[in-house]
C-alpha cells in the first residue's frame, strides 16, 4: 500500500519501541552504553521499530526463542489508551508520537488487540469531527482550539489541510463570483 519512498512510513518505522533481549548477545553492549561488553539477556533497550521487529521475528537456529521480545511503545501504553477512551480530544498525540496512528497500525500488525483497534478508531473519528470544524471556522492561531491543533499527529494534519483547502476553494469561488 505505502510506497518504498513514503517518508511517513520511514519515519514511523524509525520510532522507538521497548525491547527485552531474551538471549545474551556478545558485542551488542553498545546499545546499552556498555561499549565493549555483551548485551545481557533480560536487559531492556529502546530500539527502532524496524530493527526490533526484525529481531523479534527472527528465530534463533535450533531453539524456539526469538532474540528479543517486543513490548508496546509508551505512546500506546494503557495509560494513553485510557486517556483516549475518556476523552480523545484532550490528548496531545503529537507529543506521544508524531506518527501516532501509523505507529498504532504497525503495532496492531504485530499484536492482536481488538480493543486497541476500537479505541484508536473511535479516537480518530471524534478528533476528525473537531478537525473539520476547525478547518471550516478557523479562529486564528491564538483562538480556542490552538492547543488541540498543536496536538495533531501527521495523519490528522494532512486531514486538516485537505478539508481546509476544499473549504477555502469554495469560499474563493464564492468571492470570485462577485467580481
Amino acid at each position, binding site marked *: 500500500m505505502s510506497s518504498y519512498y513514503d517518508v511517513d512510513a520511514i519515519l514511523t518505522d524509525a520510532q522507538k519501541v521497548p525491547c527485552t533481549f531474551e538471549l545474551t548477545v556478545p558485542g551488542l553492549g553498545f546499545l546499552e552504553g556498555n561499549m565493549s561488553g555483551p548485551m545481557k539477556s533480560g536487559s531492556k533497550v529502546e530500539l527502532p521499530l524496524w530493527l526490533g521487529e526484525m529481531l523479534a521475528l527472527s528465530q534463533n537456529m535450533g531453539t524456539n526463542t526469538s532474540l528479543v521480545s517486543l513490548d508496546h511503545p509508551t505512546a500506546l501504553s494503557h495509560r494513553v489508551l485510557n486517556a483516549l477512551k475518556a476523552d480523545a480530544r484532550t490528548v496531545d498525540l503529537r507529543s506521544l508520537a508524531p506518527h501516532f496512528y501509523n505507529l498504532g497500525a504497525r503495532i*496492531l500488525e504485530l499484536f492482536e488487540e481488538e480493543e486497541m483497534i476500537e479505541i484508536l478508531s473511535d479516537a480518530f*473519528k471524534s478528533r*476528525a469531527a473537531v478537525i473539520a470544524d476547525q478547518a471550516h471556522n478557523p479562529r486564528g492561531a491564538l483562538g480556542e482550539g490552538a492547543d488541540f491543533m498543536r496536538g495533531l499527529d501527521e495523519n490528522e494534519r494532512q486531514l486538516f489541510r485537505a478539508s481546509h*483547502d476544499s473549504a477555502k476553494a469554495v469560499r474563493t*469561488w464564492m468571492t470570485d463570483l462577485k467580481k
Partner: protein
Amino acid sequence: MALPLPPGLTPPEIAFICEMELVTIIPRQRLEGLELLGGPLKPLNPPQRASIPLWLALLLKRQRRANIVPPPWLSPDSLSAILKYETEIDAFSPPPRLPPLPSGTSLVFSPPFLPGSTADATADALPYHWLELGSMLLEAAPEDFDDANEVRKLLRGLREARMAKLRQGVEVLDAGGGVKMNGVGGMEVGEARTFITGVVDGLRKIGKSREEARKERDRENGYSPSQDFDDDEMDMR
C-alpha cells in the same frame, strides 16, 4: 507529480457543470432559434417565458436582454421551511421527487439531468445544484428576486446547517461503513469529499490488521476468492 489538484472536482468545475441546468427567463428581445449541442433552442418571443441553459441566461441577463425567473424553491418561504426541516431533523432534506418514468424510452433521468431549477420546479425540495445555482443567480440577477437579501441569508444558513451535519456524519463511519448522503448537493459533495475520504482512509489504516485477520479466517473456512470479492463489494456500500 501530475496535476496538483485534489481528487474530485474543483468548485469552478462544479459551477461549470451547473451552468447546463435549465432556468426560466422572460426575454426582453426577440432571438432566433439556436442550434446548441444540447439540442435546438426555440426562438425567444418577448412576453413568453422560455427555459434555456443557465450559461445563456446569465449572458442574456448581463446584456439586459432577459430577466430570470428564480425557481420556486429559491423563495424565502420555501427556503425557511427547508431550513426548519434541516435544523429539526437529523437527516438531510430529501431531494426533489423523480418524475414518473417516461414510457417508451429507456432513458432514466436522475437528479443532475432533471429540470430542477425552472419556474415550474417543486418548491419544497432542493435540487442537486442548489448552492451553485442559488449563488450564481443571486450574484447575476439580484433585482429579479423579491427579497434577495433574505434569500442570501437563508442560503448561507442552509449551507452552514448542512455542512455541520455532513461533518458530524463521520462519527458514525467505520472502516467498511457508509454515511447516508441522500439529498446532498454537488458543491457540498465537492467540499466534503477530501475530508470524508481522508477519514475513511485513516480508519482503514487503523483497522487493516483486523481486515487481514478476517480475510485470513475466511480463507481458512474455505471461502473461494470470488466470494471474498463479493464480500469486499458489500463493504463498499
